[in-house]
């Protein structure tokens, strides 16, 4: 035995819990440091992103403009073009990362993320459907077309999630079954997308391909406001629910023994995760990799047992804004879709984390 005592007031030996009424939190240094560093990266990337482009603006002028100064040109470029775009990137990245973290925690499987189990595919199928058949006048295509691509994507993501949930429901939701059902539904939806691409005119196929890659190009306040509104409601909700995730790491009976209402909490968490993923995909397309990898990177950086949600959120935002900055500036005047950069940036990093020599970190 170590010298630490396991008295009633101690959650983790050697650490003093912070308590407020019934709630308690163990203060860990690593997650806080990672959180702070991610936030710094986010702010720096956002600041540079606001200044760089065809119309470069010095960082001091960017700050001036943000606080109401600057000339008319600077105000237009910063406040109407680059700021909303950067905000969309940050919000989308945060939403995808949290969504992935929740899914991965509930399913206890690192492959369970909205891009693998059919949520983003549902949004994609609906959006490509609109792009390819939207020119049609009557029927479902016409109805979807009148709603526009983002709303169709939102509806598609939510609808896909409901189908997956109903198919996976059997006296409760079990994480593993949810992933398998999701993969099944995902395969059908991706097949549908591929088929739609073959029946499309080539220019429609090209337009669909851009959307399918995930892009922040020409995003405006019209995308920021719904995203921000959703986040405002869901972020507190997910932070309240997050304590349940710790209990859900164990089997259901243990979690019940710890006083968690397992099915209800899980359903609520899944709902939050689905809305996060759908709203993000509606705003920017199915940006690759952020939802799958950010929680895994955060988990490894923080050396925790499950993906830490708050850290994932900031890290996801930082990664996406950084990726957009690179997408906009890496090839000079040619602008890449952000989804390409998130993958090119994120994949080798995950590979490095996997391949680096053994450490004391938990696998």
């Amino acid at each position, binding site marked *: 035995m170590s010298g630490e005592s396991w008295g009633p007031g101690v959650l983790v030996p050697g650490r003093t819990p912070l308590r407020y009424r019934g709630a308690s939190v163990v203060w860990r240094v690593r997650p806080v440091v990672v959180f702070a560093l991610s936030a710094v990266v986010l702010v720096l990337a956002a600041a540079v992103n606001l200044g760089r482009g065809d119309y470069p603006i010095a960082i001091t002028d960017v700050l001036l403009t943000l606080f109401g100064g600057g000339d008319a040109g600077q105000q237009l470029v910063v406040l109407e073009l680059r700021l909303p775009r950067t905000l969309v990137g940050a919000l989308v990245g945060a939403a995808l990362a949290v969504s992935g973290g929740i899914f991965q925690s509930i399913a206890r499987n690192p492959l369970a993320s909205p891009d693998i189990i059919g949520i983003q595919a549902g949004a994609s199928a609906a959006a490509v459907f609109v792009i390819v058949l939207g020119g049609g006048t009557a029927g479902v295509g016409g109805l979807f077309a009148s709603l526009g691509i983002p709303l169709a994507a939102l509806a598609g993501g939510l609808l896909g999630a409901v189908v997956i949930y109903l198919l996976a429901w059997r006296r409760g939701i079990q994480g593993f079954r949810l992933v398998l*059902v999701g993969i099944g539904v995902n395969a059908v939806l991706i097949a549908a997308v591929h088929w739609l691409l073959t029946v499309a005119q080539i220019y429609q196929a090209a337009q669909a391909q851009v959307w399918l890659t995930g892009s922040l190009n020409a995003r405006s306040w019209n995308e920021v406001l719904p995203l921000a509104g959703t986040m405002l409601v869901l972020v507190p909700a997910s932070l309240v629910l997050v304590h349940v995730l710790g209990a859900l790491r164990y089997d259901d009976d243990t979690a019940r023994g710890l006083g968690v209402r397992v099915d209800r909490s899980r359903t609520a968490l899944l709902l939050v995760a689905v809305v996060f993923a759908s709203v993000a995909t509606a705003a920017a397309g199915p940006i690759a990799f952020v939802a799958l990898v950010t929680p895994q990177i955060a988990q490894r950086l923080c050396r925790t047992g499950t993906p830490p949600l708050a850290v994932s959120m900031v890290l996801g935002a930082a990664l996406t804004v950084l990726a957009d900055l690179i997408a906009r500036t890496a090839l000079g005047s040619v602008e890449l879709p952000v989804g390409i950069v998130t993958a090119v940036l994120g994949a080798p990093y995950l590979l490095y984390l996997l391949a680096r020599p053994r450490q004391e970190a938990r696998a």
Partner: protein
Amino acid sequence: MRQRRLLGLGALAVSLLVAVLASIALGAKVIPVNEVLSALVAPTGSENDVVIRSLRIPRTVLGVLVGIALGLAGALVQGFTRNPLGDPGLLGVHFGAAFFVVCGIYLFGVTSLFGYVWFAFAGAFVASAVVFLIGTRAPGGATPVSLALSGAAVSFLLQALTSSVVLIDETSLDAYRFWNVGSLAGRDAGVAGQVVWFIVIGAVLALASAPALNALSLGDDVAASLGHSVRRTRLVGVAAITLLAGAGTAACGPIVFLGLVVPHLVRSFTGPDYRWLLPAAGLAGAVLLLLADVVGRLVARPGELQVGIVVALIGAPVFIALVRRRKLGAI
């Protein structure tokens, strides 16, 4: 148990025969049964004879080969990664093949399916080799999780690179979107000839690794104490997966879901013993692919629905029903 396994294998063999006959007899063009028979035994060179001998028979042969390859590959991936979500696509095969095909189209102007095969095969090989190398270097070696994660990471990377090529070049997109959907149509006998030996060697390697897979399913330590070299077994397994999935994908484009669903289907009567599971998965893969191809030809006449689409549409409900019915926690 033994009787159930033999019955199951027998049923699969009969189904394969039926599927082969259906694939030869049925299609966009309606050909009476007696003319089908005469085309097989005493061809006269009529139009129907040509359709059957130079279109449907090569297509059927290719379907059987690719079906066996993908079924075996799926069972191997699930065995080696000990992940019931395993699919050859998990090791980056699909996206590796797709990326190299796109590069072949964009950089070298390759336009024929015959030409795509080598690019697809090379891509499948490179991708799964990279995934395996990275997966084994992870802490704790080639665990199921590290293989799956490195596969996902490489897949995403290759998918993004593929997107960037087809976004730059509309001609590549145009060719790629038809390759990417997965189809048996328009492949002449040469395509089957290109891939057949890879599939044969891959199948032999697969069947040979069955006893080691049985030991591995008890855990690496148990397998080692039973006298199996875990490292060598994995190497052989990855070689087999690459040959089988690479050849299948090279010949037909990415067919999702077949490798994932087939092992789950046959496990219901073979149980977890890979000496039975692997042959059954090969046969079931061929049956499923052929039937899906026939259905695709019949439902959308005079055009056709590509087999990749039909496999997904048939496979998904079966798969979901299985997931709901059985306890899938352990493999």
